[in-house]
């Protein structure tokens, strides 16, 4: 099974994360400006009732992209075969052309954390993640993509081993696994704030994006975040990836930069998704954000 992705005509389009709290308004809206929806299978696998009905209705209107929450790439727990088989059936039923999850730990020391915990950028983590991606791909019989996650601390690699930077680590994993990348621009911004000096944030994001093998990017995520701490001058020094606030101008600018990089490499823009999981506003406010994304993506095509 190749790691490359047939994106089923979604390149250059904009979508929205489908959330239970948004479902009713979205399904009642006549023509919201989105070309696809994204769901987390963990929230819908084996689910009926109103939530299941909403998803069935949404599937009739939009293509569905599936993005997991508990892939636990690099985790030590064995692959849950029963869950993976159920996931495979779910992905097939929803016409998934690829499946993405996060490049992180979620299952820790025998228990689920339900949080995206950062990996050390070590050789051990890269090798294990690549093996895990290949193993899941074989079971799901679908191309896989891994997402760069936001982080608030960085575990060190073993003594004597030089830590890779995030772009090198990501490249190491995806080339070893021959898989795709789900590039979260907001996460790149969050990490740049959290691990760079305030004056170097934008250059750090640009350097990260430039260093990625963009030809492997199958989808882009965009979201808002929460500023947890600032320096004396008001510049953020710790931001949290909450998906609970509107996107900010610098992150829109970084999307435009990212799409320029695609164009410079002769690549078509991948599908761009707006994620909003908390403090969900009236749909009209999200529509404004979707339209702004469409303008940026349209300008890059």
């Amino acid at each position, binding site marked *: 099974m190749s790691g490359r992705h047939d994106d089923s005509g979604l390149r250059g389009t904009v979508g929205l994360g489908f959330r239970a709290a948004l479902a009713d308004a979205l399904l009642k809206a006549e023509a919201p400006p989105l070309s696809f929806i994204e769901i987390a299978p963990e929230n819908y696998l084996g689910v009926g*009732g109103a939530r299941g009905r909403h998803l069935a209705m949404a599937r009739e209107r939009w293509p569905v992209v599936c993005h997991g929450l508990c892939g636990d790439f690099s985790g030590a727990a064995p692959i849950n075969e029963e869950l993976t088989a159920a996931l495979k059936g779910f992905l097939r039923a929803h016409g998934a052309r690829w499946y993405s999850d996060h490049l992180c730990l979620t299952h820790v020391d025998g228990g689920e954390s339900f949080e995206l915990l950062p990996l050390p950028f070590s050789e051990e983590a890269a090798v294990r993640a690549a093996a895990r991606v290949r193993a899941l791909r074989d079971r799901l019989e679908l191309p896989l993509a891994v997402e760069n996650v936001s982080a608030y601390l960085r575990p060190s690699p073993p003594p004597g081993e030089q830590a890779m930077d995030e772009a090198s680590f990501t490249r190491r994993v995806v080339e070893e696994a021959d898989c795709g990348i789900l590039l979260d621009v907001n996460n790149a911004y969050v990490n740049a704030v959290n691990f760079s000096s305030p004056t170097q944030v934008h250059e750090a994001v640009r350097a990260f994006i430039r260093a990625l093998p963009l030809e492997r990017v199958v989808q882009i995520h965009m979201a808002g975040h929460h500023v947890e701490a600032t320096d004396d001058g008001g510049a953020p020094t710790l931001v949290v990836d909450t998906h609970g606030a509107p996107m900010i101008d610098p992150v829109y600018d970084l999307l435009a930069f990212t799409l320029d990089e695609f164009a410079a490499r002769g690549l078509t823009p991948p599908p761009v998704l707006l994620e909003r999981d908390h403090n969900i506003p009236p749909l009209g406010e999200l529509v404004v954000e979707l339209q702004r994304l469409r303008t940026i993506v349209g300008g890059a095509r």
Partner: protein
Amino acid sequence: MTTLKDVEATFRALAIGDGGDALVAGGAFGAAPERLRLYRSLVQNTLRSAIRRACPHARRLGGEARLEAHVSRFLDTSKLETRFVRDLPGAFSQWLLADAAEHHRDGDDAVAYAELVHFEALEVEVTMAETSPQGGLSLSDDVTLEMDGSTRLCIYRHPVHTVTLQTSALSSLAPSAQPYVLVCFQRAEAFAVEPVAAAVGKVLIACTDGATVGAAIKAVVDEGIALGVSVDVGLVRSALVKLRRLGAIAAFVEPT
């Protein structure tokens, strides 16, 4: 920090277990305290809010501090195997029932409280369950039962299914000599509860194990004779028909 195994163990202790404060003070991962506390806060908020949301009556009647204390012990002593946040209230309620059975003393309300938490968590499970296609309507001794995918049979000592916003104290949930047998299921996407007689509950359990209705009823009648208790077979059949009509039983399945 060394291997991935060490990273996992440290995150587990930092974010879920009761060793978080020591790891923050010790500067685990070489990180600043606020960043370590952030991970603990993110994980704890996800786990606790999923459980809190599911138990509004237990929080109101037992108090927030009581629920928080139980959740803390649950998180300290259990490894969360489910990958689904929606299963957390159910996992917690099962743990709490077992804990109450082991540790309660006569006269305290630990079992009533645990049963209330279980019943509230069940509502989450049932309303999110997949329902089954509805089938045969004709009841006879030869049919087997196909329960709806959302249906759960519960047995409680306390009338937790009667709790409303008007219920003011756990002490009002007096234990009953006869257990409350409840058929809980999804109806029109909402949580539905049908109290049934103990004999009906036994028939449902036998039929869930594959017995025909006739064989299940005969077994219950025979057991009643042995115990000197009469079983109203007509009432049992009426209850089955009603459960079928309500959708808790998806089908009376004719033998092939």
